[in-house]
Structures are given as C-alpha cells and as structure tokens.
C-alpha cells in the first residue's frame, strides 16, 4: 500500500515532493548524509563520482536563477550530467503539455527531474506519471512546498543550535505566499521544535495557519521575545495582487528586522533568510551582514543538502 507517494514499498525515499508527513528518520538521514558532503566542496577536486553517467534535468516552468544554480552545482559535484530547461520560454509557449514535455525528456533517458512550477502539485503530478526508476525533486510548486529549502534551513539550524527540543523559532513575513515557510513549519514540527512562531500583518497570514502547530503574532516585540532562531521571509512583490500592504516603507517600519528588533531575541539568536533578500524591506543591511546572520552559510549548506537528497533518491529501488 502506498499512502505517501514519495516513499516506495521498501520505505525508501523515491521522490522528494514535500516535507509534510516525512518520517523523522528519513529527514535525519538526509541531514546526516549532507554533513559528509559539506567537506567535498573544500577539497582540491570538488566532486565525487557517485552519480556518474546519470542525467538530471532541471525542469523550470517558473523563472529562478538561485535555486536552479544550486541544484545544478549539486548535481555536477555528484558527477551527473545536468541539463537546464526553462520551459516557460519554449515548449509551453508552443502548446505542449507538462506531461508531454516529461515524456519527451524521459525518452532521452532522464534519471531525475528537478521541477519548479507556479502550480501547486506540479511535481506530484510528474512523479506519479514517470517510470519507476525516475526520481522527482520538487524545487518549489506554487504556494505549496519547497522541501529542499526547508531541509537546508533545518541543516543550518542544527549546525548552530543542535537541540530542537529547546528551541524557539520565529518565521517572519509573507507567510501567505510562502512555500518556504510551509516546508519549514512541517520540518520544525517533525524535529520536535519547542515552539514555532509566525509573525506577520494579518493580511500576510493564511487562515488556519494555527492548525499547523504554530503560534501567531502580529507584533515583532512580542513575537521575537526570547527567540533563538529568526527566519525572515522575502516580501514577494511579484506575487502580491491588490492592496495587501500600504507600502514597503511601512512594512519595514513594523516588520523589517533591524538591530533594535533583533535585540528582542535571545542574545545569541541566529538570523536566516532564504534569499533573495530585499534589503531595507524585510531586513536591514546591518542585520543581514551582521555577526548573527547565517544567510551565506545557508547557501553553502544548501548545496550539500541537495547533494544528499539526490544521492539518497538515486539509491532507492536499488
């Protein structure tokens, strides 16, 4: 019986579509494996031969430079062959369906698809369609999930603050449009985080978010009090329709992370951001570049985490 489409009948991770419902031991296995990949990038030859001869397709139906690049580097450091397809600009405009595109690439002997799509569930649809030996990684689908970002954030938190059972974590900003926040909340819950808070104006918090096991705050002073980890979300201008916010300046005044607001947190709190940052909108430059910021280590760890996910998926079914 398969009640979780990303786990095969042997209990192995076959696709990575969402962190929701992911068994804790699989999540920890990914983080532990990633720890071994971190050192690879510091060597003379930044590559291991694990996925030599595998063809990995970056299938991006939605523009992205950063995420696509980190997946590309991760695949290349595993010695796979990587092909980047920005579908928005080619097949789709000629009328080809998503599954036709996938079938065509499968006929070119693809081994893995990394999928980014504006529609929630796109990666899921592809995973159910492909042959059993092909693996799918969701690189962001609509407002639904961005599991590798969630995993790399967990890796980063664990690196600096290993005991999730004692941690207070606050996620600040545009939760309404954020697939990153959703993936982080699921992962934090799986890892037994003491307290997960979300802080945002009412218009940027989806209804029913409390059902995910988080505490909702609309005020930074109260929400950040005693917090060990602050995750700032990007204010997604391009997704915002209508008058959700008065102005970016006003948002910064109430919710932008400044040194004064950071002082509400625990004295050794770390500051994270999934990027790309809007300096002066959700985060002040002095915080982004400050001693408590771990934003650049997130990027470095992200490659190791994606290498771990790809090699674990490629192991399944063998």
């Amino acid at each position: 019986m398969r009640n979780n489409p990303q786990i095969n009948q042997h209990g192995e991770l076959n696709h990575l579509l969402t962190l929701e419902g992911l068994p804790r031991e699989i999540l920890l296995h990914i983080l532990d494996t990633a720890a071994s990949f971190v050192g690879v990038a510091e060597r003379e030859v930044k590559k291991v031969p694990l996925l030599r001869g595998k063809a990995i397709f970056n299938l991006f139906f939605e523009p992205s430079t950063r995420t696509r690049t980190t997946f590309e580097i991760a695949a290349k450091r595993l010695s796979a062959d990587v092909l980047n397809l920005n579908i928005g600009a080619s097949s789709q405009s000629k009328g080809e369906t998503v599954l036709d595109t996938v079938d065509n690439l499968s006929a070119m002997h693809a081994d893995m698809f990394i999928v980014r799509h504006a529609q929630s569930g796109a990666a899921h649809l592809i995973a159910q369609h492909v042959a059993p030996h092909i693996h799918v990684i969701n690189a962001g689908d609509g407002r639904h999930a961005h599991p590798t970002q969630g995993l790399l954030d967990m890796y980063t938190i664990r690196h600096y603050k290993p005991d999730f059972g004692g941690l207070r974590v606050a996620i600040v900003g545009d939760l309404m449009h954020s697939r990153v926040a959703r993936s982080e909340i699921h992962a934090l819950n799986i890892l037994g985080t003491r307290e997960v808070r979300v802080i945002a104006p009412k218009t940027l918090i989806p209804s029913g978010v409390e059902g995910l096991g988080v505490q909702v705050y609309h005020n930074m002073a109260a929400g950040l009090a005693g917090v060990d980890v602050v995750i700032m979300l990007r204010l997604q201008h391009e997704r915002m329709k209508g008058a959700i916010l008065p102005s970016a300046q006003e948002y910064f005044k109430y919710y932008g992370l400044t040194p004064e607001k950071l002082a509400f947190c625990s004295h050794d709190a770390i500051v994270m951001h999934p990027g790309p940052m809007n300096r002066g909108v959700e985060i002040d430059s002095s915080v982004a570049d400050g001693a408590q910021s771990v934003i650049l280590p997130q990027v470095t760890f992200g490659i190791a985490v994606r290498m771990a996910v790809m090699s674990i998926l490629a192991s399944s079914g063998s």
Partner: protein
Amino acid sequence: MDLPNAETLVAHLADRIAPHVGAESALVGIHTGGAWLAQRLHQRLGMATPLGTLDISFYRDDFSRIGLHPQVKPSDIPFAVEGRDIILVDDVLYTGRTIRAAMNELFDYGRPSAIRLAVLIDRGGRELPVCPDFVGERIALPRHQNIQLTLEAGHGFVLSLQSPSAQVDA
C-alpha cells in the same frame, strides 16, 4: 579456527611500519575498523602529521547496485595531500575494491608522492591488483566467511569470524 590476538598483531604491524615513517609521512584510516586501527598506529608511531580518515561511501563501485551506505561519515584529511607520503590503513584486506575507492578519493585531495597500504589481516580473495606493503597476518579464508575487527571496552581490539551460512537464505 584459532584467530590471532589482535593486539599482538597491531604491535607487529607498527614495528613493520616504523622504519618507513619519515617527516612527510601521514596515516589515513578507512572507516570504521581502519580508522580505529590508524588511530592506534598513529599513537604508537608518534607521528607528527595529524591523522586522516576516509569514508569511501561516495566512491564505491557498487552504488548503482546497493545504493548509498546508510551511515556515511565525513572524510577528514587535516593535511595537504600534495607531495605527501601516505600510508593507507584498513583492518581487513579482501577484494581490494575498498582500497581502489580510497585511492580515488585521496587523489581528489591532491597528488600524493606515494601511497602505501597497511592492513591488520590479509584474508586473500583479491578481485583487483592490490597488494599490501605492511601486513599484520595473512589468513586464507573461504568466501562464505567474514573476519571482523571490533573495539571492545577493557579488551581493546578483538578479531572474530562470522559465517553468514548460519543465516537462512530466503
């Protein structure tokens, strides 16, 4: 079959390696048994260069058949490999595939001037042209048997035999 005392073999192996250790020499142990053994040899030989360890999971030749090892440990080479005289250490030498993987991984850190191989037990059964330079003891074992090194509190290193034939094959 009577197995030799592992602690005695470690002493013999250290004696054999000692005359070949110079200022540029470095020990690298292969996880897990080889890393324990290398740590002990490193102490006994009083080597100046810090000890290195390798986990060869990312270099195995059977990844496509059996997948990733469930517990990968980080490799740690805390010295420049370039131009170094490396003594690679493993507990048991069998097919030679682990050694091939370890050599491939070492070369991704740099070009050593030499790699030599030290093993506690050479059990025969090679599938690749690998020959150890320093051996604790040679024991001819049939294919169905495995010999394993363990580190036991109060006893130090202990060698034991396993016969998978005792398990029922489904």
